[in-house]
């Protein structure tokens, strides 16, 4: 190859390279419209508890988060990590708390569609106004709800506290594998001890660590790139999706899991009762698909039984969510880009659950008057 031809080849490769770089830049810009730094949501780690306890509207900095994997939602979070309801605060109105995981974080729906927003609107229309603070973080467990109890109670002095649970909330993994906090159950007296999980620094430090990037400029660069974040996250999630098949549980395994779930549920409800007192309301949100019936699932039955024994108010959103399906032909879970009835609560689901919570707490309020 002579010099001229060589130059042409080099030029061709440079042009190709520039084309590829241009595409990456365009992708980065496009993705910035659809995603944002989910990691900027204030999290309830041990160091942040004083900030939750001393939250002030004056110094509040709102964080905006967008997501498009389940529907398309724009969410706003306060600096104490609570999800905005999009409604104005009413001075002197009592406060209710909703605590839970990603179902309360509710990234999938807009602020005014969250269950807290529904409760505020309903209560105000009934001339019995309340302000609702919603504390939810994806991947958290009961340990986190216990860990933040003192802080939120101190700051908000709530009239009622709703804690949301789902089907998988009383497994061994939910107890030991939660974000921010995990817990241990004393085998003798079934008391709980919350333990902080090692704090992660940046928005996807844990993701980067899994692929071996623990320090350096590249890590910093990736930390600010939506494209890189999505790419790495996708890689890791794909790996998990294609993981080894788990063996089918035997009858003995099932019994053991059931007994374990009972023990965990008992300890959790006791712990929450001690932490939040008489104001506690346990809310169960089942997954309602097209084939679901009124028959409660195992977790629901366990939770209802334990709450009854511990004298804690319990409601299930099953009837409300089934009502949506039977009366209106819609499902309260799932979005236009997910399967029918699978995933998080959509705006109709939030509405149904919100109204159920309000019905329970308003009834309790009337009874107490």
């Amino acid at each position, binding site marked *: 190859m002579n010099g001229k031809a060589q130059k042409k080849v080099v030029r061709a490769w440079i042009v190709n390279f520039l084309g590829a770089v241009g595409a990456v830049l365009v992708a980065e810009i496009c993705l910035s419209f659809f995603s944002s730094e989910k990691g900027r949501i204030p999290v309830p780690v041990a160091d942040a508890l004083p900030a939750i306890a001393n939250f002030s509207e004056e110094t509040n900095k709102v964080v905006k988060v967008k997501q498009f994997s389940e529907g398309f939602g724009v969410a706003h979070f306060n600096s104490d990590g609570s999800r905005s309801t999009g409604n104005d605060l009413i001075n002197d109105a009592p406060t209710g708390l909703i605590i839970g995981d990603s179902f309360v974080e509710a990234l999938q729906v807009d602020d005014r569609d969250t269950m807290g927003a529904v409760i505020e609107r309903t209560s105000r229309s009934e001339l019995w106004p309340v302000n609702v603070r919603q504390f939810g973080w994806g991947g958290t467990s009961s340990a986190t709800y216990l860990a933040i109890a003192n802080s939120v109670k101190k700051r908000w002095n709530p009239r009622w506290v709703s804690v949301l649970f789902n089907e998988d909330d009383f497994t061994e993994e939910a107890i030991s594998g939660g974000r921010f906090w995990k817990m241990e159950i004393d085998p003798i007296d079934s008391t709980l001890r919350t333990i902080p999980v090692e704090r992660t620094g940046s928005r996807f430090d844990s993701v980067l660590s899994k692929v071996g990037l623990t320090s350096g400029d590249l890590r910093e660069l990736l930390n600010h790139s939506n494209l890189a974040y999505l*790419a790495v996250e996708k890689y890791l999630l794909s790996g998990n999706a*294609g993981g080894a098949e788990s063996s089918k549980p035997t009858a003995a395994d099932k019994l053991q899991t059931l007994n374990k779930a009972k023990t965990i549920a008992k300890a959790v409800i006791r712990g929450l009762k001690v932490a939040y007192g008489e104001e506690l309301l346990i809310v169960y949100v089942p997954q309602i698909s097209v084939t679901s019936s009124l028959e409660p699932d195992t977790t629901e039955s366990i939770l209802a039984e334990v709450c009854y024994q511990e004298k804690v108010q319990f409601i299930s959103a099953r009837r409300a969510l089934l009502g949506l399906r039977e009366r209106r032909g819609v499902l309260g879970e799932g979005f*236009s*880009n997910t399967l029918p009835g699978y995933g998080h609560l959509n705006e109709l689901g939030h509405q149904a659950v919100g109204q159920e919570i309000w019905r329970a707490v308003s009834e309790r309020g009337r009874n107490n008057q």
Partner: protein
Amino acid sequence: MVFTSLAFIGFFFTVLVFLYLLPTRTSRQFLLLVASCYFYAYWKPIYLLLLATPSLIDYICSIKIEESDRTETRFRWLLFSLVTNLGLLSYFKYTNFFIENISLLIGIPVRHLDIVLPVGISFFTFKTLSYTIDVYRREIPASRSLWQYAMFVTYFPELVAGPIVRASVFLPQMTRSLGFSWPRVLIGMQIILLGFTKKLLIADRLAMFVDEIFAHPGDFSPTTVASAVLAYSIQIYCDFSGYSDIAIGVSKIIGFDLPENFNMPYIATSITEFWRRWHITLSRWLRDYLYVPLGGNRKGRFRTYTNLFIVMLLGGLWHGASWNFVFWGGLHGTALAVHKFWREIRGNVEKDRKPIVRGSLTFISWFATFLFVTFAWIFFRSRDFATSKTIILKICGVEAGGVSWFYAPLLWATIAVVIGHGIGILVARQAKSPQSRPKRIVPPVWLCRSYKAVNYRFGIKPSVFSGIYVLLPLPGFTGAFLLTLWILAIYLFSPFGTNPFIYFQF
């Protein structure tokens, strides 16, 4: 090993690296043979024996057929080959179906046999059958090289789900060097990406929705069920043509050209045209090895219609051991016969009509064809007739109620498929001469010119199109830009996990 899995991508790259490192054509062919065996054994090593046994029998039979001048002897060897191939296919695919039906007839429950259907058995059986029949018909010489014959049978890109390649197409390509070629890599890579796009971004997304609705059609509203049927129509096209694209692209990079299998079937304006565009290699196989031997259209009208019906009925049964598939085949056979009858009594009156009337009729024909094909897919996808019945009652509005669900990916997929087909039609029109309808899509002249302008400058001259595939202008800024965006989109927006291709079950 599914084409869209990381395991396959790793396997393919390893094969390519060794292929380009090896010095001679023979060593490369040997590598491909070993790789193909590994690819097949990845599912279940024992099934390699199943692949080897009929192949060896066919190899011997074909030589015996060629060596003999006596018709009787030649026919006996052919019969031996046919019985072996079809016997194995029948045992693995239809034994339980047979038992089930006998059991229903006599009213005594009979236990099913524990038979696992070997992957791709329907495809490689048809491939080897065509080889022996072609030798019998003296259309091709029998391969004297067991080595080359084994490679033809086991060639991994098309081993498990086609395209069904005939020996007359494949064996002459054995003289190719199989060395590295930039143009082939650039073309092959784009065809693979097209396949990945169809499979991962469209078919797999729609599969989740379709599976859910077809599992409980009675629980969903009529519009939701109808949208699921439409979704399946798109899913099966993107799934199977996506698989074919990947097979063709992979093969292109290795150095072999496989026949095209899909040519925008949903633009067909008649059922006959649909089968010229859908699963082309199977349609041609059925035509050459079933329809023609049955008499084709040479024995009068009634026999022609009957032959069409029989061929499609058997084609349906080939897809799967279920009455649903048979019924689906029967529907298509009836439609083909009716269309043939209609064409014969109507003659060619198209040219006398005004363009607006002709356009409207073309649209109506297209719509009716698409509607029929989509309707027939209900039987193809449903697990039984009861499910098909529920779906049809729902769609017809006889059974109302149920959950309404709008599935946004269906809208995107429909738009993508419509745009893709639109581009295809525009490009095909460009080359359409008044006398004849082009069989292959040729890109517009401006695209060829601009592409050549860029390409010739860099000394790499792949065609701007490869068969029916329209390609990006590579190398160049625009090409690299679009290609990178394309790869990123596939990676980021494909669903998690790997779904097997629909046609793997056949």
